């Protein structure tokens, strides 16, 4: 009896449980996947999706790709055994620098589409998120057009219909000018929807949108104007190349956008003028993350102890001051760059190493040879005997003896007795210079820009949180100056340029008549060194095939025509300090300098017409026959 009861009960229970519909039984909400409805109704979740999109931005020189993305173009020498190829090759592959991440574009388009469709967010959040995604999309198209020229302009997520036919998804390349127009019009459209706040630096702000617009318009204007000098670098459908007639329109837009920032309508941006020492002040632009810094507009931020840190300081700190044994000294600015910093009277001159009759000039202190120059020099470059973290760099290549021979060593910091003495003394600096000795300076210089003076910043365990500056006010001023100059408003150009220059200690203002194309080129090179501009600037002015012409540089090439936009710049030279030892001479113990080409430099940069626009690789053209090839490839 009891048994029958149990069986019946079991049967009843089973039957009752089965009453649930099969479909609802199988339809279990996932606990690991967030659906669109959930994500786009919570501002915190939507922001975290946006954070991923921010993180996928592409910059030419950046900390995530490492110090090597700052090297090259003869502006610096790579002091690392595995990286000498940079100065041993004779040019670049056509595919170098290409990007084609339509996966990122699709994610941005989907983000915008889903936000537009969502109802759960406050209107203000929704507007701002959409504006930020449009900013990122425009910024990525800008990055693509700089490298590839016109690319397919996709602003909606494309969907495949499983019909086996993909021709409706194969989009041809837009004109180069169309992409620039898109960047400019997007910036115009979103600037009113982004916060007007100079302290909003790592998310898009109105200032960032306008700075992007000004830069894009100045790029487009110069490609239109100077592209006329290289008719080979263009395609019949204008996928590459912009008609010269459009130049003035772009320059006008650039000037308007830059002036919107300059007149304060996008937030209170200003040049950074805080520290009394102008070189320290210049270096601090890249270090100061407080609200005192009104110069940086849009940055990629880092934070110590959060996991989001970078190794720039670990890789590039001076060897003798390194926090980490044998991890230092990789990026050595070249003499080519160092000598291009002007003297304080606005003139260009090589660093004086020899007098008129060819005899060496002696200096009491290594720093004396650099005296009276643009303060940005010592702010960008760590000179021999310069201070970092309270210590001085120790850079010299050896002793020059009375008989004109050199006493040196193959090991940095090694000791040898001088002639006529028995006590060994140090004959090479602890930071080099020894030809081919990696991780020490081989040009006589170390990098200072972005180098973090914080305690422990050079340790692999801690690393550094110095931000990467993507847009800053000084560049906006230079864009305004360039646009004004090209529009024939030289006095206005001089006003903007003099602001940047006086901050660097060049207090004698340039007159309107002094502003030339060469001046514009030079000012950007020294102000924005190592900020990822040099390649794109040389490309848009169509100077790249002239300055990187593949011919090796002689000393005469090196020290002549400084300040000329077309000066050859194919090999990174160094300035090697020597100590003079001749007890009979009044110059005993003083310093002299020699221009020296570091031993590993065997190649000479050659930029070909086919390098102006990076190759669209075969897998892309094979998948989409509508893509036309780049010129000269």
């Amino acid at each position, binding site marked *: 009896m009891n048994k029958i009861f149990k069986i019946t009960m079991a049967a009843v229970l089973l039957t009752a449980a089965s009453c649930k519909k099969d479909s609802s039984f199988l339809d279990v909400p996932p606990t690991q996947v967030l659906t669109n409805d959930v994500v786009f109704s919570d501002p915190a979740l939507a922001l975290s999706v946006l954070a991923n999109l921010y993180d996928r931005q592409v910059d030419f020189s950046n900390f995530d790709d490492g110090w090597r993305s700052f090297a090259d173009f003869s502006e610096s020498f790579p002091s690392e055994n595995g990286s000498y190829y940079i100065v041993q090759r004779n040019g670049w592959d056509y595919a170098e620098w290409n990007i084609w991440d339509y996966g990122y574009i699709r994610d941005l388009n989907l983000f915008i589409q889903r936000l537009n469709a969502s109802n759960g967010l406050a209107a203000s959040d929704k507007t701002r998120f959409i504006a930020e995604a449009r900013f990122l999309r425009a910024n990525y198209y800008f990055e693509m057009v700089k490298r590839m020229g016109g690319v397919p302009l996709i602003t909606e997520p494309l969907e495949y219909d499983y019909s086996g036919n993909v021709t409706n998804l194969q989009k041809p390349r837009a004109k180069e000018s169309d992409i620039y127009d898109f960047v400019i019009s997007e910036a115009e459209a979103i600037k009113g929807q982004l916060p007007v706040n100079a302290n909003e630096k790592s998310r898009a702000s109105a200032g960032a949108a306008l700075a992007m617009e000004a830069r894009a318009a100045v790029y487009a204007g110069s490609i239109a104007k100077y592209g006329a000098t290289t008719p080979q670098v263009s395609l*019949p459908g204008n996928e590459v190349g912009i008609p010269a007639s459009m130049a003035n329109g772009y320059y006008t837009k650039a000037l308007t956008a830059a002036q919107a920032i300059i007149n304060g309508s996008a937030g209170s941006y200003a040049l950074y003028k805080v520290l009394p020492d102008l070189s320290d002040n210049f270096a601090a632009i890249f270090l100061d993350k407080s609200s005192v810094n009104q110069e940086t507009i849009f940055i990629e931020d880092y934070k110590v102890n959060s996991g989001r840190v970078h190794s720039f300081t670990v890789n590039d700190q001076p060897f003798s001051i390194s926090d980490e044994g044998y991890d230092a000294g990789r990026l050595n600015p070249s003499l080519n760059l160092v000598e291009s910093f002007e003297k304080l009277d606005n003139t260009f001159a090589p660093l004086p190493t020899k007098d008129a009759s060819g005899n060496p000039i002696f200096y009491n202190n290594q720093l004396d040879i650099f005296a009276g120059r643009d303060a940005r020099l010592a702010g960008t470059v760590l000179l021999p005997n310069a201070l970092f973290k309270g210590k001085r760099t120790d850079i010299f290549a050896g002793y020059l003896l009375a008989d004109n021979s050199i006493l040196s060593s193959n090991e940095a910091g090694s000791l040898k007795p001088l002639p006529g003495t028995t006590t060994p003394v140090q004959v090479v600096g602890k930071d080099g210079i020894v030809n081919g000795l990696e991780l020490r300076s081989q040009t006589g210089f170390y990098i200072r820009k972005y180098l973090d003076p914080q305690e422990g910043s050079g340790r692999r365990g801690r690393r550094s949180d110095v931000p990467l500056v993507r847009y800053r006010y000084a560049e906006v001023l230079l864009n305004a100056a360039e646009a004004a100059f090209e529009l024939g408003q030289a006095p206005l150009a001089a006003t903007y340029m003099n602001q940047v220059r006086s901050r660097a200690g060049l207090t004698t203002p340039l007159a309107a008549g002094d502003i030339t194309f060469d001046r514009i080129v030079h000012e950007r090179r020294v102000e924005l060194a190592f900020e990822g501009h040099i390649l794109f600037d040389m490309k848009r002015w169509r100077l790249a095939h002239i300055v990187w012409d593949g*011919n090796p540089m002689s000393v005469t090439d090196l020290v002549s025509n400084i300040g000329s936009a077309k000066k050859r710049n194919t090999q990174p030279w160094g300035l090697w300090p020597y100590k003079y030892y001749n007890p009979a001479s009044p110059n005993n113990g003083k310093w002299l300098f020699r221009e020296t080409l570091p031993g590993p430099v065997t190649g000479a940069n050659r930029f070909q*017409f*086919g390098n102006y626009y990076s190759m669209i690789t075969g897998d892309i053209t*094979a998948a989409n026959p509508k893509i036309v090839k780049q*010129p*000269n490839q």
Partner: protein
Amino acid sequence: MKKLFYLLIFTTVIAASSCKKDNYKAPGSTLKGRLVYKGDPIGVEYNQVPFELYQSGFGKVGPIGASFDQDGNYSALLFDGNYRFTIPAGQGPFMWKERATGGRDTIAITVNGDQTMNIEVTPYYMIRSPQMAASGGKVNATFNIEKVVTDANAKGIERVNLYINKTQFVSGADNIASAEMAGSSITSMNNLSMSVTIPTISPTQNYVFARIGIKIAGVEDMIFSPVQKIQF
């Protein structure tokens, strides 16, 4: 013991089944030739003038690319089949046929066993009867220039260089010394002469390689005379 036996069986089976061919034959037909103008060879810079071969009919189409050597020779190891040969736009110191509809023309090639095919092109200029000899620590060269393209496509001469190098690779990128003559200073195309001082070579050698190159205005690649080895 038994374990060893199984292991033996296992390896035998694997070895036996591996005997089957698992791959295609490697391409075995050589296509080679050189750049010529009416039978005269054209010299270019090593590794700077590319060519492309296309074979359609196998799904996606992409080029088989390589470049000419400095004497204008090329070669490619291919499967037998039908190919199209072309030189990409803007490459080489010569003109390449354009199709009326736009785009570069291609040469159809049927590869069936080894074969030699010279590529006939129209250079803007040719260096004629180059004579080079060393005397007094210099390499002296005399030569004539023939202007080949004289119609609307004609281009001027930007400069003429005499390069010398200690190895057989001689060009703007590979040289130990060079002399330069601006195109504007050329008044006659005949009996041109140039000379370049031979620098000290370490380790010493008593010969250099020399050749003359013309840089044509608006064209990236230079056209060269044949390389000569010069004793001194």
